[in-house]
């Protein structure tokens, strides 16, 4: 009878170093076959060629002092353009000593956004506090109460304006978009046709044509003596534009609701208004939350288009800094700084939308 002796030496033999640990990972993920190896080497060569010069330009050789000394003859980046003009880029022509007001408004917005991230906080109260928050933000920017000086909207600019246009745009567009989606799903021929016409027409034209319309045609629509300021007109154009996209998103949500839901609601004796408010919309709107965040992202990016009708948003303030002879020729630095701001905001939102999609996906 053979006795199997447990050999302690075999137990200690580890897997080859080339298949576990760092080396194993590298082999599996970077040098898996000849094609991947060639690819890795090529990409690494490209990175080595491009990253160090960029780091040298952006960090090692760069200038940061607001005075801008040494910028003209230096090889590196001149971040002075940002540090020297930061307040103008962010706040535009808003009176210098009153800039705490737009800052506070932005802080309120960010606080609301952070509070709303948690789904446990989603209650009716949150909706009301959003409306209240938006109203407070508007009032803070405008002033005219508690002895605060009135700042006309012609002086609003920079990041607060960008955020204002995006957030108010979405808030205004949502109810309109839901109405349009309901109209499109309606059995009433005339209503349906009107809604389809509106949605398809708006989706077929670029936002810039609507902005042109708001700046040159809209004043003609109003009776004599009535004028609406430029920011409000642009805001109206953004709302009308975004509503069509929201309508399409909400339509997707409405289509996802099973027929049985409508029939059950009808058999309970609910009328159209009750069916929609109590049964259909709560379910449909929940489904479309993630795509709505995507619309918020594109609305946020699209607000930069108001540059073309000469509103002083974030992009326009930066461009006017670049038009100053002192700072001419440092476009790359200024645009990279702006890109960072936009990227951070959008990345935060899209990350959140992805997380939400995972959480809300109940697998049904």
């Amino acid at each position, binding site marked *: 009878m053979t006795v199997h002796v447990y050999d302690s030496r075999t137990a200690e033999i580890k897997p080859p170093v080339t298949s576990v640990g760092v080396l194993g990972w590298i082999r599996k*993920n*970077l040098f*898996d076959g000849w094609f*991947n190896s060639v*690819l*890795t080497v090529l*990409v*690494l060569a490209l990175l080595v060629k491009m990253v160090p010069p960029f780091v040298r330009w952006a960090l090692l050789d760069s200038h940061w002092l607001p005075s801008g000394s040494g910028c003209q003859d230096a090889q590196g980046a001149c971040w002075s353009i940002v540090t020297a003009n930061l307040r103008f880029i962010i706040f535009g022509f808003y009176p210098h000593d009153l800039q705490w007001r737009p800052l506070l408004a932005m802080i309120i917005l960010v606080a609301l956004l952070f509070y709303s991230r948690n789904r446990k906080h989603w209650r009716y109260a949150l909706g009301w506090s959003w409306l209240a928050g938006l109203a407070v933000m508007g009032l803070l920017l405008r002033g005219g109460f508690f002895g605060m000086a009135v700042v006309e909207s012609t002086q609003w600019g920079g990041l607060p304006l960008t955020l204002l246009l995006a957030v108010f745009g979405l808030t205004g567009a949502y109810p309109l978009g839901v109405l349009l989606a309901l109209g499109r799903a309606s*059995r*009433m*021929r*005339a*209503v349906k046709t*009107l809604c389809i016409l509106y949605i398809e*027409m708006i*989706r*077929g*034209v*670029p*936002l*810039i*044509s609507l902005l*042109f*319309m708001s700046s*040159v*045609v809209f*004043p*003609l*629509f*109003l*009776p*004599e003596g009535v004028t609406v300021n430029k920011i409000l007109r642009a805001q109206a154009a953004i709302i009308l534009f975004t509503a069509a996209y929201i309508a399409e998103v909400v339509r997707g949500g409405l289509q996802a609701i099973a027929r049985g839901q409508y029939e059950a609601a009808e058999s309970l004796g609910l009328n159209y208004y009750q069916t929609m408010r109590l049964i259909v919309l709560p379910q449909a709107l929940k489904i479309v939350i993630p795509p709505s965040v995507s619309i918020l*992202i594109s609305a946020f*990016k*699209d607000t*930069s*288009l108001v*540059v*073309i009708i000469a509103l002083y948003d974030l*992009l326009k303030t930066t*461009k006017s800094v670049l038009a100053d002879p002192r700072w001419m*020729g440092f*476009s*790359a630095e200024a*645009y990279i700084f*702006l*890109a960072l701001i*936009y*990227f951070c905001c*959008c*990345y935060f939102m*899209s990350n959140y939308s992805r997380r939400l999609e995972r959480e809300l996906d109940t697998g049904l």
Partner: protein
Amino acid sequence: MQTVDTGATRTPLLNDPAKRSLIYQVGVLLAVGALAYYLVSNTLDNLERQAIATGFGFLEKESAFEIGESLIAYSAADSYARALWVGVLNTLKVSFVGILLTVLLGTLIGIARLSTNWLVSRIAAIYIEVFQDIPILLQLFFWYAFFYEMLPAPRQALNPVAGLFLCNRGLIFAVPAEHPDWGWAGWAFLAACGAVYLLRRWALQRLFKTGKTVPLFWIAVGLLSGLPLLAWLLGGAPTAMDVPELRGFNFQGGVSVSPEFAALLLGLVLYTAAFVAEIVRAGIQSVNRGQTEAAKSIGLKPGQVLSLVVLPQALRVIIPPLTSQMLNLTKNSSLAVAIGYPDFVSVANTTINQTGQAIEGVALIMAVYLCLSLLTSALMNWYNKKMALVER
């Protein structure tokens, strides 16, 4: 026994669904009509007061402005209509080239995102995230500044490849010098395309009848490259090149791409490709793994697995969102007005400023983009129908 008198209990007007819906619809139509009447009457009043003539009569007048680049002959003495047509053609040019490059680059990045190579997949992911999250207009401004500020003057032009120059006057590259033979080669290529199409039909028929395959791919490659080559050789094999040369302050000869066009194209392609890449990735991932495994197990080669099994199924998922990205690119090309490329919106904007015909100008912009959108979606719907699942 009680009898029910149906005639006596008439339903109230608002409780009868058919009549109620009729009332609502009439109400909505009236409201929309009243709004339209209000706006139109206001507008007419305003126009009369400001003494602006309405109508499209201005299209016949002399435009009196120059356009930087044009596909057709144009001068400031031509009419506004011709100027606008130049704009339409410029929009079509940038959209067409942009869509082609975007689909190519987007597909490449989408596939790179799915690569098993960690480095490649990471870089593709970073590209997608960064370029999606920066507004297209900012990107356009950046590339515009790149051409005008960061690139050197023609004297110090970058010359990465022989015959290609990059400077603040744009991109200038060498092309073969004019020779009738190049035309023949082009015709030969078209003929080869026709031949490949017919050959493919014949090969498919033969496949279904006899089960025998034809090495179609290699025959096609041979035809497509061989016929033009043959035409070129027969025509005397011209090798002269039209190389750009620095004369004075600028380049002469070759083909030059203006910085505006190059910046617009670069911005549009890099931005839209990030979205297309995500669409392609999602499309390929939507094909069940079992499909690939089954295809391999019946002995298909990797190329065949991709072309016969994975792609036809992935394309069905990819095409609808891809269409909307193409439309987005076309619509975003209107941002050319911000960097001075004379696209349709830019020309229309100049027209509005010169003539004051704001309503007509904006209406024209909307009409042209609506037509482009409808045309693109009609084309893509046709293609989509062709690719759609044929169910039994």
